[in-house]
């Protein structure tokens, strides 16, 4: 089971955090800070796995963004890499050649996509098409109920 997932930039700025285990806020911040520093310090040639505290961290860098998942000891590390890749593919399909800025300005969408891919720390859907279909349908629901007209910036804006 995934314990948490973090997205952060090469500069160490957090872009997305998803926790599947309950920790106090303070601890979450501490873990995030320490993990970002540790991962950023690793050289590009090194392997994508890091035994860190009691979790196994699997990370991969895509352009300027690091995708980093904390898994349990018995989870398949290579599969976690595939899962990260799948998430990146979905973001890419949704935003159309995704970049860090897309995720910054539409972070809620990035969360929505992740929530259609992973639930409670486990993968829930292995078909890309189904994930994107669900997201599109929900976006449509949102659009339909958002009033048009002179309050055009009514939504999240």
């Amino acid at each position: 089971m995934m314990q948490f997932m973090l997205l952060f930039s090469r500069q160490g700025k957090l872009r997305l955090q998803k926790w599947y285990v309950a920790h106090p806020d303070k601890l979450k911040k501490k873990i995030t800070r320490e993990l970002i520093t540790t991962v950023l310090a690793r050289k590009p040639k090194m392997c994508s796995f890091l035994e860190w505290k009691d979790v196994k961290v699997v990370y991969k860098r895509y352009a300027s963004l690091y995708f980093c998942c904390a898994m349990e000891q018995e989870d398949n590390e290579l599969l976690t890499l595939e899962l990260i890749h799948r998430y990146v593919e979905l973001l890419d399909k949704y935003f159309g050649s995704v970049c860090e800025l897309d995720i910054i300005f539409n972070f809620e969408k990035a969360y929505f996509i992740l929530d259609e891919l992973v639930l409670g720390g486990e993968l829930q859907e292995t078909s890309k098409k189904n994930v994107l279909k669900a997201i599109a349908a929900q976006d449509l629901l949102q659009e339909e109920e958002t009033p048009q007209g002179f309050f055009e910036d009514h939504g999240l804006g």
Partner: protein
Amino acid sequence: MAYPMYEVDWSVLPPEQNRRFNPTFNIATIKQVVNEAIERVRMPTPTRLRDLIRQIRAARTAAEERSVVNKECAYIRSTFREEDSVWRCRNIAKLLYIHMLGYPAHFGQLECLKLIASPRFTDKRVGYLGAMLLLDERQDVHLLITNCLKNDLNSNTQFVVGLALCTLGAIASPEMARDLASEVERLIKSPNAYIKKKAALCAFRIIRRVPDLMEMFLPATRSLLTEKNHGVLITGVTLITEMCENSPDTLNHFKKIVPNLVRILKNLILAGYSPEHDVSGVSDPFLQVKILRLLRILGKNDAEASEAMNDILAQVATNTETSKNVGNTILYETVLSIMDIKSESSLRVLAVNILGRFLLNNDKNIRYVALNTLLRTVHVDTSAVQRHRTTILECLKDPDVSIRRRAMELSFALVNGQNIRSMMKELLLFLERSDAEFKAHCSSAMVLAAERYAPSNKWHLDTLFRVFLKAGNYLRDDTVSSTIQIISSAPAERQAYASMRLWHSLEKSAVSADATEKQPLIQVAAWTIGEYGDLLVSEASNAISMVDEDGVDDFVRPSEEYVIDVYQKLLWSTQLSITTKEYLLLSLAKLSTRFTTQPSQDKIRVIIDTFGSHIHIELQQRGVELSQLYRQYAHLRPALLERMPAMEVAGGAGERGADSDAEQEPLSDASPERARPDQDALLDLIIGSDPLTNGDVEHRPAPSTPTNNNTTNDILDLLSGLDLTPSAPVAPPASVVNNNVPLGAPPSSLLLDGLFAPATPAAPVVQELPTVMALDKNGVRVAFGVQRGGEVVTLTMRATTAQDTLTDFLFQAAVPRTFQLDMMSPSGTVLSPQGEITQVLKITNPSRTPLRLRIRVSYTVDGNPILEQAEVNNFPPDLFN
């Protein structure tokens, strides 16, 4: 269309306020509506999310960013106060962004609840997102959404149900799990795959948090595997895996699905290309891996189930394309399954070969996985793994810490009697270069391996000394005492050798002033030279070869005075720890009886006298006491500082535990009939109380003929012996001496008390805690008064009786092995209704785990022997903090 602003699309009002269909609307209501609309236009709309993000990103300094955030937070708070429901969704979204930057956002928690309760999907979507980010089971607020979740789990819109399930899966606190389990169970049976898969994962989370709830999900679970939808299949497999790991009964229950799983897997690999689930030529690797893992669990220790999956595992292992990561992912999981189940030997060969290929792969990730898998399979087939030893040792030099760590652990798993010499050589190199985080673990593993496989005693000592040199202060404390034990029990020639070797290192450290980095080494050296200093300086030891592994013999026999000069240098160094100095000081005192020349004697005396005014109280006390041995009690000095008798090396795991009964045998003849079974039973009790007992138990029953009164003492011996494990934290040097030096004559007892008193740092703060009731049966009450004082907790047992007078009252106690228990003698054995029996127990707990105590009380009332047992675990949890 006279009033276009009432068109539904134009309306900014919530539906309940939308008066388009209101038949009673008149000029007044029109006016009100117009006013409201104008008000909204006039009121500045809140900053849009993307504008806020832009502003924050434009901030050039942290202070600037803070001011933007604080301003926005203040604004958001004010809208929350005004109950502005139109912009709530946007404000929460902004708050979530601010939260990600690390600013506090807890004040948005209740607003998320309001969003969730709103009928609009946008509100719900953002509200649930906020709930997942801002709420967790640590805050009671999270329980407030249980009701909303319940409503939404019954919604007609699948996406609303989906949001609720997703949130439940993310938070899943035990309370929530209990309240909503039945809803989830209903949704697993839903015909809608979108809901079904989410519900299955919620069930997985619920079971993980509250295993008791598993039963109710069992009937709905099995049918998940008959679905076509891969989402449902994978979540179903995940759920079943969790259930199987949860209880052996369920595991057996699911054995019958093995053919189903095999069929699904077979379809996956044989079916043609399916674009929906294809990942670089592999059909749904996610599902394949999950199924392989479940097969592994089902096939473990089960020949029949293993037989059923042999073929498919072979197919997966041979047919999977390995040029990409996905293929290796599946192979990795397959190898683990093959090694874990009772598979055919040909299949195992195949698996080991795959691992061999993995190990040589250029991809670091694959190599890591190979090392990891080899470690997990080394217990199954050591010889297969031994074949890769050279490659594994090569990985010890990898620049990547993850790979080094794996390689190190694997290397230790491969050490055996045949390869110990070469392996240790590599590992010593590794130890020298390794990072601080590895040193402690690596050195203690090396000490263990050396102890287990040492080809000779000399090699063992040499290796230990090298480990001491290379691990420096990272060495675990207990290694010092265990090494001292080994030296102490070695033959005299070896002891001379040890003192010479250690002198060499000690002198080198003193000269190069790196002694502070190697304090454990200094401690062992000080002890050894103190004990065997006469052999060190004696010409008689010239026969001992000091040729090291490079064939060089650069040992120069020191003069007595030079030894003392080095001691002085070390003792006066400001950086050595007090413990090390205590070792050195006692060692120096011992040297006074080993060395013979007058100048060296005088030097020793001068050094010891200077410690009489040392700033550290413990060292000062030692200094004063030891200098007394030159004055008033000079006649006692040779006897007191005599060489210690050989210490018995505790070890031989398993054997001693078995021996213990035999050792007790002679005792039973002498002791009263009644006491004997009690002792045995109590011993069982202690051993039984800790399943991890590995048998390295050492106890020596008192040889004296026990009378009825000192059976307690025998038990005491037993108990304290049990706690004397080699892994127990190192005793301060004083107590090492204390255990072994024969006690002197009564007049010196006062001196000895001071001399050998355990090193207590400052007087610990004594704290009284409430009384704990341990036993209350048939009018007999046993209670503990608890008193806390630093490391040691003192329990005062008070036994009282309501009506009968009890004779032969005997109180016994046992603690888990991580504790140390000292029992004082009881105040009596006869308990009358007016009186009480007290007995003091002192408990040391280096691991600071909560205290558990098993007690047994036996007594005779009206001629009938009674025995009561109890387990006491209601001690205050913070007892040892």
